[in-house]
């Protein structure tokens, strides 16, 4: 037995244009070990895996620092195909399967067994014909490794989700030289029983000497399955422990537990006694990847209400559903009036406004000037910035008023731009976010939904954006519902925070509650306690 670990990372660092995302990440992984990699969204897990795989985006942004050793040898992968050739396989969170192909065809995608014929000499190897019997045999062998049963000729489009996940894993296993398998949130889409089977299969693989990096938010699974747990936070390893010596609580605490500079959770308890301004009952929203099933909560006037939770658990769909952007059901009352669902205009006219998490997709008219971006919603829903011409027959756009409005917000929000007529696409992320905020403020809302306000913007802009939200809350009395993946951001700004887990509220706590409590709610430990609203 030699003692060289299968994989060794030595002080991996990476920055994107000066923005440090990984700092001095080192760990080792032995042969046949399962390593659990956990961390909040944005902690650097994905980037780390991208580095390991030699993804193009890493090279395009200036490469990485540090060394990767595989079997004791230094490796630098130029592309994912190099990594695959070296025996590393990865199963991504999204399925990467051909819907009209069978299990076998998918497992052997682009690695089919073929037979020679003469045309190969003239054209190329792709003129070889498929050897279906051989393919069947190889695929079944890979499936056997997992210790489960899969139908070889079932089409992916007709498979249950679990089968798809197994097909993906089998595809990686089918590589002859597979040594290391990275599983990114493999159980996220599975039912409980399917997840159990998968965990068992992963154990099987480890017993056969394949090392595994297992990324998951389900901490119970991690404790249950892994030999070792590595916790990433803000691009650095904050804990590295054998799984037996740690607990869900300990990991959860390590994942979160940092505070934002200049902000402290504060208690404004006296406000919470007033009649609610927003009342949400049994809301369900059908938003892909972010579904919520049954959510009820109330928001008090003047409050900043936070909604947190891990990615994919459904927090984003709450504002999107209430604002009519995705199909939703249940009932929503604003100031005692029922708000029509599935009708963006209805929600806007009721006095609510929304800053979308999808800034470039939903939030902005990228190829139109700033003033349009800011004034458009107000113009369409409230008939402002219009001049009646010919006795009101024509509602003429008042370009001067629009420009003045934009100028006002450019100054008050410090939007860095050349002027109101600059196209939105040319601004930086932070300034684009400010434009989105300006758009939302321009309709003079009584309640503002802000979704992931600081995602993808630099630190300076982050603070400005959060300050702005707080200022408008304090000075203009706008009630705010803020959705964010960053717990500390929520704790710093909000009065109360609801945590969404698996499409339901797992708990609502005042922001002054300990981070660990929220972290536990996030990873599913609130599921067993009755929901308090």
């Amino acid at each position, binding site marked *: 037995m030699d003692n060289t670990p299968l994989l060794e990372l030595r002080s991996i660092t990476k920055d994107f244009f000066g923005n440090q995302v990984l700092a001095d990440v080192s760990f080792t992984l032995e042969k046949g070990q399962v390593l659990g990699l956990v961390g909040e969204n944005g902690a650097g897990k994905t980037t780390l895996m991208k580095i390991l795989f030699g993804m193009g985006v890493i090279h395009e942004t200036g490469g990485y620092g540090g060394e990767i050793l595989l079997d004791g040898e230094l490796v630098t992968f130029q592309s994912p195909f190099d990594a695959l050739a070296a025996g590393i396989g990865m199963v991504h969170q999204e399925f990467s399967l051909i819907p009209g192909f069978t299990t076998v065809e998918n497992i052997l995608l682009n690695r089919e067994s073929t037979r020679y014929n003469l045309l190969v000499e003239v054209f190329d190897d792709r003129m070889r014909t498929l050897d279906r019997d051989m393919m069947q045999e190889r695929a079944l062998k890979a499936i056997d490794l997992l210790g489960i049963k899969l139908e070889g000729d079932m089409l992916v489009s007709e498979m249950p989700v679990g089968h798809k996940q197994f097909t993906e894993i089998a595809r990686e296993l089918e590589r002859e030289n597979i040594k290391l398998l990275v599983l990114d949130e493999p159980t996220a889409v599975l039912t409980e029983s399917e997840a159990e089977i998968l965990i068992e299969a992963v154990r099987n693989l480890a017993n056969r000497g394949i090392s595994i990096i297992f990324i998951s938010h389900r901490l119970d699974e991690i404790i249950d399955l892994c030999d070792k747990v590595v916790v990433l936070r803000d691009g650095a390893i904050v804990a590295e422990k054998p799984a037996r010596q740690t607990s869900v609580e300990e990991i959860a605490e390590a994942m979160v537990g940092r505070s934002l500079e200049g902000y402290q959770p504060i208690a404004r308890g006296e406000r919470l006694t007033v009649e609610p301004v927003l009342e949400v009952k049994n809301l369900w929203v059908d938003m892909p990847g972010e579904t919520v099933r049954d959510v009820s909560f109330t928001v008090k006037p003047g409050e900043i209400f936070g909604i947190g939770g891990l990615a994919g658990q459904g927090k984003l769909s709450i504002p999107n559903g209430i604002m009519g*952007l995705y199909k939703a059901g249940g009932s929503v009352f604003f100031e005692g009036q029922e708000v029509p669902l599935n009708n963006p205009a209805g929600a806007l006219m009721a006095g609510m406004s929304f800053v979308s998490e999808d800034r470039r997709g939903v939030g902005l008219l990228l190829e139109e000037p700033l003033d349009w971006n800011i004034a458009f*919603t107000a113009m*369409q829903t409230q008939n402002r910035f219009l001049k009646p011409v010919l006795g009101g027959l024509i509602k003429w756009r008042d370009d001067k008023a629009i420009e003045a409005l934009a100028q006002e917000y450019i100054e008050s929000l410090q939007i860095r731009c050349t002027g109101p007529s600059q196209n939105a696409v040319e601004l930086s992320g932070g300034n684009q976010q400010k434009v989105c905020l300006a758009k939302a403020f321009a309709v003079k809302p009584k309640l503002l939904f802000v979704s992931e306000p600081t995602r993808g913007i630099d630190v300076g802009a982050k603070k400005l954006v959060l300050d702005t939200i707080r200022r408008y809350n304090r000075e203009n009395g706008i009630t705010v519902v803020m959705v964010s993946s960053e717990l500390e951001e929520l704790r710093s700004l909000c009065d109360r925070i609801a945590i969404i887990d698996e499409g339901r509220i797992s708990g609502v706590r005042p922001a002054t509650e300990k981070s660990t409590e929220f972290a536990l709610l996030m990873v599913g430990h609130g599921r067993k306690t009755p929901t308090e609203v």
Partner: protein
Amino acid sequence: MAEKHRLRYNSMESIKGFIQKVGWPRIIIGIFLFALFVAAPFVEVKVSTSISDTLVRFGMNGILVLAMVPMVQSGCGLNFGLPLGIISGLLGAVFTIELGITGFAAFLTAVAITTPFALLFGYGYGELLNRVKGNEMVIATYVGFSSVAFMSMMWLLMPLKSPTMVWGYGGEGLRTTISTEGFYLHVLSDFLAVRLGSNFFIPTGMIIFMLFICLLVWVFFHTKTGTAMTAVGSNPDYARAAGVSVNRMRTISVMMSTWLGGIGILVYQQSFGFIQLYMGPFFMAFPAVAAILIGGASVHKASIYNVLIGTFLFQGILTMTPSVVNSVINTDMSEVIRIIVSNGMILYALTRVTKSGSRA
């Protein structure tokens, strides 16, 4: 010193900016057209006739090109279904002649009859396009083709009586070309027309009418609805989030485009002198598409400015190239040049990397 340097730098930048803004294809075509005008006198082509012809064609085709704008702006892509609008115009024309109205009244009647047809067709066409988002252009093309073929059957079957239109003896249905003479031939063109000598003529009335329609469209895009339409084309998700009904805006834009197509063909006929039925409208979308693209529009952005510049450049080339090239090499290559220039331009626009395809 530094100031001077800055100035130079700026002017370099502004030239670059100008090229970027105007785009290479337009600059090349513009220079080419200019060269043709310069070369014309040397090869004994009368410049006055050329300019006059260009202006006439500019006025004739302007509104047909304008019919692209609403649909492009609302994100429906290039209006390859222009024949549908043209058909509504043809219906207007045919019924007007059946009623036997003459003169300027005839033109107004034709516009009046065209309008309901155009709105009806446009509504159906718009509703259809709302169901095939992302594939509008190829479907629009075939909707145009099918409607032309369908109307060909209708022209045969329509029980119209006017002797100007039905075949004299032994024929069936309407004639393939019907003269507008005695009805509304040149009613716009001759209004305030300027004539200098025998070969220079400015169809003032027609150009004024065309500019007037352009103005209407321009005004529309400055209203609340017009602004919403532009936003829908720019980012449908943004517009929806702002409470705008995306499908409704798209339908309105298609109705507008169809109506403009109908009016456009009436203006065309009053200048050209003939109503072309049957397969006449079949390929009419392509020159209009090419013209607006030459004017600088893209698959998802177009303006009145693009219409005016594009129509002038495209029609200028169509007028000038044959006359100049023919007298140089004694060959009539106009048709081939038209095909290559117009389709080459469309091809260029389609293969430009645009994000509009990725967004539903």
